[in-house]
């Protein structure tokens, strides 16, 4: 999909920001807010989010490739991944808006919605604002358009085939500095004593060192692959910028510190539980929920995913129960 397929206006004469169209949705921003417009019941409906929250959510949706299932930017707008196509919705997973009939959903080919979202990020992220960073580590998202931050929004992630550091696999992060909140994390390396001929077969890394050098928050990346079982640890600080709605069961293993999770019904958003996870805690996120996490101290979280391709259908059809264990 070419950038030419993205529908955008010229820069606004006052704010400098472009307006983007995707199907019958329209995205605009001003100094403080991002606004989404869509048609429903013969009217143009609108929804606003603070620009920083919108851009943090949009950044995760792009970086995660629309992830597994639903990425709710807030309780009104979001995307659902159909793996090749993506739904963009407004109000479709909000009980009140849906029952009032003012919700709207459109499906797009993944390359088109991805190109549009990337174009919005390139235009709306100002110099000094890093949507991946914790609030204490970045400048402001607000104000009229001033510059850009392409280095931050176009960070290149290399897919891991088995484990970082193996020959031909993704690199370690030795060139990145240790985050300010992980200065006390040991940086020692495991000892690997391979017999001649087995140097490429034995491998070990300091996973906590690797994580302590992550320069992004709430952005899982694969560190070990056992067939379709993917360990995707990440470092977390402040708020997960989206409510992730699961299309399969995923698991969280809290490696360090603490995260609090609000869990709601996937379709309505109504609260179901609140989990406080401390170091060593492990818990499932069922396939019928949405969740959002809060981490005051930067923490290490192991997100565990099952990438088996047909899982969304099997959960949706009822073949698989939404929770992982019968007790």
């Amino acid at each position, binding site marked *: 999909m070419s950038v030419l397929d993205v529908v955008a206006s010229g820069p606004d004469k006052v704010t400098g920001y472009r307006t983007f169209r995707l199907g019958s949705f329209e995205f605009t921003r001003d100094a403080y807010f991002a606004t989404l417009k869509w048609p429903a019941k013969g009217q143009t409906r609108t929804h606003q989010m603070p620009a920083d929250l919108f851009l943090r959510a949009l950044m995760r949706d792009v970086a995660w490739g629309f992830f597994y299932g639903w990425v709710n930017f807030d309780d009104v707008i979001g995307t659902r991944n159909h793996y090749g196509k993506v739904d963009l919705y407004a109000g479709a997973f909000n009980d009140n808006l849906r029952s009032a009939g003012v919700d709207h959903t459109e499906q797009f080919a993944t390359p088109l919605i991805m190109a549009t979202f990337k174009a919005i990020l390139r235009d709306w992220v100002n110099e000094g604002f890093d949507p991946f960073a914790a609030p204490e580590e970045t400048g402001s998202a607000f104000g009229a358009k001033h510059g850009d931050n392409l280095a931050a929004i176009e960070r290149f992630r290399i897919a891991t085939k088995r484990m970082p550091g193996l020959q031909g696999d993704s690199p370690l992060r030795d060139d990145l500095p240790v985050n300010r909140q992980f200065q006390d994390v040991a940086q020692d390396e495991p000892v690997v004593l391979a017999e001649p001929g087995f140097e490429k077969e034995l491998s070990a890394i300091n996973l906590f060192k690797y994580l302590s050098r992550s320069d992004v928050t709430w952005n899982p990346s694969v560190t070990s692959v056992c067939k379709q079982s993917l360990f995707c640890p990440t470092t977390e600080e402040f708020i997960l910028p989206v409510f992730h709605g699961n299309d399969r069961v995923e698991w969280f293993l809290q490696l360090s510190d603490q995260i609090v999770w609000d869990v709601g019904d996937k379709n309505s958003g109504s609260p179901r539980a609140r989990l406080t996870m401390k170091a060593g805690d*492990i818990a*499932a996120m069922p396939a019928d929920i949405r969740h959002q996490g809060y981490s005051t101290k930067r923490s290490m979280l192991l997100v565990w995913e099952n990438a088996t391709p047909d899982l969304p259908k099997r959960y949706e059809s009822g073949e698989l129960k939404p929770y992982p264990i019968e007790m």
Partner: protein
Amino acid sequence: MALGNAKYLSAHWRRQMTYQTYFGSLDKFEKGTIELINDKATNYAFSNIFEVASRSRPYEKVVVGKNLQYVIETLRAEGESSWFAASHDEFAIVMDGEVEVNFIKLDNPATIVPPAKEGSVRIEGKPVGKKMGLVRLKRGHQALLPAGAAYQFRAVQRGVLVLQTILGDHSVERWKEICYQ
């Protein structure tokens, strides 16, 4: 601008805040909580790996996470384990203590871990094959347990291992005992 830019940290924040990263251990852990609103605690299969390991026999492969056939197992590392092997890659992370892992390349892996066999298989006695070497792991270190290689854990200092693998003959499931009900 630099990524994750420290220049945005206020002087107040830099001066006042010091951070201590908290990792649990076999001897010191605190289990979190579930505040239920409209759900059942069992849906979350919530346990704590240190608590589980503190109640396990050495190297008992207790399943603490299960996603269809895939599992996360917690092992109490103490003394020396049996030898194990799998037909697929597995991964071990040391969450507490210090563990040495010895490896032997199996001469005839298909007889012990045929390709269709999932999960780790316990090998009686010392495996037949070439010595590959060893790795020494401390807290936070992760090792590849490559497909077709036998491995044995030896705790230099007792602790806790997490294993990424597939449900196997020696996996132990006791969900009611380890999870919030």
